[in-house]
């Protein structure tokens, strides 16, 4: 890591140079446009460096635009930072925020649709260039509010060495729910309980993991317009029962909740043979794993499936036309195929457009490291991440239900019925 001035000092220095140079400048309108952007990091690792490097490259190419990229914590922290800044009248011009913040941001009336910013045909073509699966969480009522940036799906990481030691085929990850339970149990048994079979995180984003189980059972948890949820459907109950059974019945997974934040470490220290986690962890796992591991699509019940996840670019309303144009330039640059490819290689997040996977860099990378393509291949089986109005309340209701069931406080059916009641209450004013 090369030493670098903190951004704000850099900006101050730039500002100082500018005012000094102003007398010489022929045209005052050449002042760079100042953009402020908040962005989150949800998976740990040195992703802030990657973003800072990208921003620096952008500024070198576009001296007329200054971008101050501010790391703001996880997705929730970033929402808080951005919303507080807006309320204080210091609105950023753009930000990377949780894709599912869409409904709340629209309800607070703080973002603009990209359709209003698009002027040229090239820009329209760019807007249409992303994977449709990644646009689901960014669109509402026919308008596009979010441009995919750090997007992921859930994938299964498995430890080939552990599989081999337990007498399983190291090249054969589980294809179905039954297989995953059986393989997990086999690992746990073969190691006399030293090593767990599988861990699915149930803190941080439990609703996200649960969505995967439900969708694999052919069930979508919410309506497209974000006004209804279907938590207590029998297919959802069956999905939660399976999740609980991994610990209760099959002894493939430990009891209680499993921490999102330490799960990667669990996998790296081989205390579990399989984990479900964001593909955004891929590069970090690759760099630290001292064993042979593989990445696979999640197993299926009636179909393959994973929700997409991650962050989108948003442009805020309280922004001048000039700043909006600059923001567009920046977002287009950041999501261009070459950058999307570089970002994907550095992190494990998905290349957001088919064109990104056609770049030489990413093609070569996938050739030497095939797991990098799993998230993309799984995209055709993906569903939108749980996003509704009153999203915080609705997700919290589902999170609580998942945790109550996993810790044995309630049966899956009771827990989901309660979550349904709470979500219905939160959404009662929104039913159309």
């Amino acid at each position: 890591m090369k030493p670098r001035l903190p951004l704000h000092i850099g900006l101050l220095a730039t500002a100082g140079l500018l005012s000094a140079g102003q007398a010489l400048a022929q045209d005052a309108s050449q002042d760079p446009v100042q953009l402020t952007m908040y962005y989150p990091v949800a998976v740990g690792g040195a992703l802030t460096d990657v973003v800072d490097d990208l921003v620096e490259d952008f500024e070198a190419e576009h001296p007329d635009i200054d971008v101050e990229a501010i790391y703001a914590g996880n997705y929730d922290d970033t929402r808080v930072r951005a919303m507080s800044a807006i309320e204080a009248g210091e609105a950023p011009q753009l930000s990377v925020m949780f894709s599912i913040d869409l409904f709340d941001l629209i309800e607070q009336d703080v973002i603009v649709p990209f359709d209003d910013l698009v002027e040229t045909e090239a820009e329209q073509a760019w807007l249409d260039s992303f994977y449709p699966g990644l646009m689901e969480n960014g669109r509402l009522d026919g308008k596009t509010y979010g441009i995919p940036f750090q997007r992921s799906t859930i994938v299964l990481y498995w430890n080939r060495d552990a599989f081999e030691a337990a007498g399983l085929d190291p090249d054969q990850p589980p294809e179905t729910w039954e297989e995953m339970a059986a393989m997990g149990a086999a690992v746990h048994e073969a190691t006399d309980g030293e090593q767990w079979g599988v861990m699915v995180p149930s803190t941080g984003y439990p609703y996200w993991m649960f969505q995967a189980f439900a969708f694999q059972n052919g069930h979508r948890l919410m309506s497209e317009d974000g006004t209804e949820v279907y938590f207590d459907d029998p297919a959802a109950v069956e999905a939660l029962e399976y999740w609980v059974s991994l610990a209760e019945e099959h002894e493939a997974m430990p009891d209680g909740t499993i921490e999102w934040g330490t799960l990667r470490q669990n996998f790296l220290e081989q205390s579990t043979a399989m984990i479900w986690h964001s593909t955004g962890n891929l590069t970090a796992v690759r760099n630290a794993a001292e064993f042979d591991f593989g990445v696979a699509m999640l197993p299926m019940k009636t179909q393959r499936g994973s929700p997409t996840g991650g962050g989108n670019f948003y442009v805020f309303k309280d922004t001048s036309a000039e700043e909006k144009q600059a923001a567009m330039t920046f977002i287009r640059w950041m999501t261009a195929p070459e950058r999307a490819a570089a970002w994907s290689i550095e992190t494990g997040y998905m290349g957001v457009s088919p064109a990104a996977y056609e770049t030489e860099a990413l093609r070569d990378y996938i050739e030497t490291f095939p797991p990098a393509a799993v998230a993309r291949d799984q995209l055709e089986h993906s569903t939108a991440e749980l996003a509704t109005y009153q999203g915080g309340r609705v997700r919290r209701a589902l999170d609580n239900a998942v945790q109550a069931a996993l810790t044995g406080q309630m049966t899956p059916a009771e827990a989901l019925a309660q979550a349904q009641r709470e979500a219905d209450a939160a959404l009662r004013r929104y039913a159309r």
Partner: protein
Amino acid sequence: MASLNPDRRMQIYGALLMLPAAVLLATFAYLPTIATLINSLFLPGFRGEPASFVGLENYALLIEDDTFWQVARNNLFYAVGTIPTSIALALGMALFVNARLPGRGFVRMAYFTPTILPMIAAANIWMFFYAPQIGLFNTLLEGIGVPGVNWLGDPAVALSSVIVMTVWKEAGFFMIFYLAALQGIPPELEEASNLEGTSRWSFFWRVTFPLLMPTTLFVLINALINAVRVVDHLFIMTKGGPNNATNLLLYYVYENAFSFFDRTYAATITVVILLVLAVVATVKFTVLDRRTHYQ
């Protein structure tokens, strides 16, 4: 101005001296309190509409909110778990490092270190202590053949785990106050009681402890405030889970305000917290103050 008599001038002088503090307090304590109180009487605007006045409806909702009551119970348990333990521990540590012992400065520093760490950093460290398979505690337990515990993932123990971490974090801070107070106790008292042949226990109980009472009162109030005010560790360790088992009042306020975008309900809970704290503080100052011996 020459007509002002000296009395009046002193009064103005006094008022001017108080002015800076009064302005700051009004701006950052009283005005927000009043704004919160007013906010709690509204419902947030629906789809861009302005907020609507609903009187005490938020309070009625609060009374029926099971989560609120669970969170309030959690907070009570948390206060009962952290306050006496951290105070007793702080006093014990202060007595220990006040005595002559080798490497006294080092021990004092060791006890104080947790206080210097930011809560977020401490929580991150403890999260790995508590991690079920790879964590320190379970590795130690395994060493003596005891099966591990899912410290933060089992609703039956999660809150206690958070309490232990908090006590570890806070005791060193309170120790500093006790240490300062102990050094303010005149050594003649101990010499005199030694001449009289007083036992160490009764010297502590009859002399040291009463003389420390003002410190204890101060620490007690600080500990109480912290039990309600400091929730940083929840963001890292549990996010209030599993299923609200470790959710505390202020974290619930945060969730309502920033996750659920329900500022007015958050304001309602805040008002209730303020009321409870005001009552407790009043009781403390009236009852305990009478039993406190100021030198």
